[in-house]
């Protein structure tokens, strides 16, 4: 067969000459398709961002309130006999409350406010943690006994809510925690500058408090818990994930074992996170005897959970590196290992970092597995004392804390849960910023 025997469409052009400035019908159609396609793209991004804005709006509008807090200024006379009596009782703090009450009454009358409220009623104005604050101070500064010291006591959640507009006068009819008389008092105290609303550092830096003291609860300790967990996750899942991907993508022979690993990894991605919790409980706590509620265990469980995400994204981007790059390196006598670590890996970096960003985001926000290894609940209201403690001492984590708060009865916790989400997101962005910057630097086309 020779070419000449065939009718050639080239000698009789199928398209007639046309002006470039006048767009022909087919091109118009194709351009419309192009415009549509691009519009889909724009709207996809816009839709995504709109949802983000909607969610952020919900988060911010519900949660910003948690960042301010009402305090009541009370000068308290640290009377030795009263303190000694209090120290003798079973529930010492309840006696300290009485000491505060005395001071509080004095402060009120000094400001020219008189009230016929009984002690219980007065106590409702202030957090029940006030007594603990006082006791702690006394134990730490025995030399101050006998003097009068002015404290900024945290106001109770209802009073705080009143100043934030969350608690309304008419809502208090059925409320046994506060009534309208209290609000009158608050109004007067505000005039007298006894109550102040300030930025709530305690919320950012403090520890969790029990259900009866929402006003005292803070994210600090759980932030530390999340920090140590993420440290474990990052230090384990990134190197292990990348190493596993390199092995699978570059070294593994094509055989059933490789397929088995491959299927396994994608399957692990679909394992519900709570199952990882079951695994963590069985393996790390019951078998390996690691302590309960420890961020180390949480980190290990979340590492296992994050690995598939990192491996899948890393493998996809390793696959996307053109073979000619590998050839080039091998051709100058680089070993396979060198060609991968020197050339392929840097080119796959954006994908690896994306996997890390998404994987860590997921790990940071995960609650269910923590439920089973004991990191959800009311956990250690103390900060870890050192590095080792940070990994091993019982602690909660931010999402667990938020989840707990969201369940609690007092509406003030609801506000805190949203506030906690704000902190979590800030933490997330801080955590990812490095990866995002790095990714931009590695992104290139060839």
């Amino acid at each position: 067969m020779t070419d000449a025997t065939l009718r050639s469409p080239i000698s009789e052009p199928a398209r007639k000459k046309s002006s470039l400035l006048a767009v022909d019908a087919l091109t118009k159609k194709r351009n419309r398709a192009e415009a549509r396609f691009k519009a889909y793209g724009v709207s996809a991004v816009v839709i995504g961002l709109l949802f983000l804005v909607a969610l952020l709006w919900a988060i911010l509008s519900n949660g910003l309130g948690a960042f301010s807090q009402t305090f009541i200024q009370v000068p308290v006379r640290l009377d030795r006999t009263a303190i000694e009596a209090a120290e003798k009782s079973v529930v010492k703090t309840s006696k300290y409350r009485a000491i505060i009450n005395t001071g509080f009454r004095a402060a009120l009358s000094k400001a020219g406010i008189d009230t016929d409220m009984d002690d219980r009623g007065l106590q409702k104005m202030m957090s029940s943690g006030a007594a603990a604050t006082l006791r702690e101070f006394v134990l730490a500064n025995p030399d101050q006994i006998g003097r009068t010291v002015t404290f900024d006591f945290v106001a109770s959640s209802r009073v705080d809510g009143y100043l934030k507009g969350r608690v309304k006068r008419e809502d208090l009819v059925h409320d046994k925690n506060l009534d309208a008389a209290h609000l009158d008092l608050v109004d007067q105290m505000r005039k007298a500058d006894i109550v102040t609303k300030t930025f709530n550092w305690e919320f950012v830096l403090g520890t969790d408090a029990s259900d009866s003291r929402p006003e005292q609860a803070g994210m600090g300790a759980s932030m530390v818990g999340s920090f140590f967990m993420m440290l474990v996750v990052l230090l384990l899942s990134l190197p292990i994930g990348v190493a596993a991907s390199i092995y699978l993508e570059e070294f593994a022979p094509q055989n059933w074992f490789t397929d088995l690993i491959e299927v396994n990894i994608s399957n692990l991605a679909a394992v519900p996170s709570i199952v990882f919790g079951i695994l963590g409980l069985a393996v790390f706590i019951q078998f390996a005897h690691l302590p309960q509620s420890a961020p180390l265990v949480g980190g290990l469980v979340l590492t296992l959970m994050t690995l598939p995400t990192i491996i899948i994204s890393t493998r996809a981007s390793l696959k996307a590196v053109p073979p000619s790059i590998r050839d080039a390196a091998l051709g100058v006598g680089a070993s396979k290992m060198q060609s991968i670590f020197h050339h392929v890996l840097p080119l796959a970096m954006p994908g690896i970092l994306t996997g890390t960003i998404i994987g860590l985001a997921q790990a940071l926000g995960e609650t269910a597995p923590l439920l089973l290894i004991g990191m959800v609940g009311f956990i250690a209201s103390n900060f870890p004392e050192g590095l080792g403690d940070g990994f091993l001492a019982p602690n909660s984590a931010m999402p667990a804390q938020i989840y707990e708060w969201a369940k609690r009865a007092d509406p003030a916790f609801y506000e805190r849960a949203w506030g906690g989400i704000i902190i979590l997101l800030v933490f997330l962005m801080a955590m990812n910023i490095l990866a995002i910057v790095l990714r931009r630097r590695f992104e290139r086309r060839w």
Partner: protein
Amino acid sequence: AEARDQIQIAGSSTVLPYASIVAEAFGENTDFPTPVVESGGSSAGLKKFCTGVGENTIDIANASRKIKDKEVKTCAENGVADIIEVRIGYDGIVFASDINGPSFSFTPADWYKALSAKVVVDGKIVDNPYKTWKDVNPDFPAQPIMAFVPGTKHGTREVFEEKVIVAGCEATGDIEAYKEAAGGDGKAAEKECMALRTDGLSVDIDGDYTETLARIDSNKDGIGVFGLAFYENNTDKLQVATMSGVTPSTETIASGEYPVSRPLFFYIKKAHIGVIPGLKEYAEFFVSDEIAGPSGPLAQYGLVADPELAQTQEAVTAETTMGN
């Protein structure tokens, strides 16, 4: 290996608020570290509790129900033989609806008729035909039936079924019809009573009371089942219904006037007493009058104080185990 020095507690999320209040106060008032209180459910807590004795296991399990015999057996098999049972009080279960809606005063029969899958109409067992509360009881407004009841994972559901639905079933006399249909089998008849309708008017809530509240928020016709403590903290959004004419409160429940409540417990491994620092002190602190008594912080928060608290205190001090 480092020795553990704080008490470890796990279990019921219903007991958790009370346990956390006590744990916090315990940490503040004693030299012992604040105990760790995990949540995760009564069952999960008891399961952890029964894995064995030793440092690596928890010391106390909170439970919103009594431990089951089968569980006691498993415990014993794993070496957890001596268990101290501590009843801390009662959890009141209340019915509440949106604060701006009409108020209700229910009887168990109303709930049975509104929610049961089948009811007896004119002597015949039929699929529940009622769509509004007025259909159930002419005294009620014509508000569509929409009930948010605890899901089957919750212990509260059991109480709700027994003390409200079955009671209503008995009160209406429908149970006799079922018994007849089942050939005199009382168990089967009760089961028939308890089966809730699945046409969407009764919604199971597997989450917490906050979820129930959120659902009422998005559907104002809804009536939900709550814990007393939860309701008392949210009186700005909810109004509570009376049951058989009694308004639920810590007092009416403690006196037994209000019928729907359940006891709350915690269980201590006796073997851990003397090993884990502060364990016994914690238990005694918990049941002391200043804490669990009617004027203590727990009652303040919504726990119905146990009228027989003194006996519990004694048992704790004497380390009386179950079955002794």
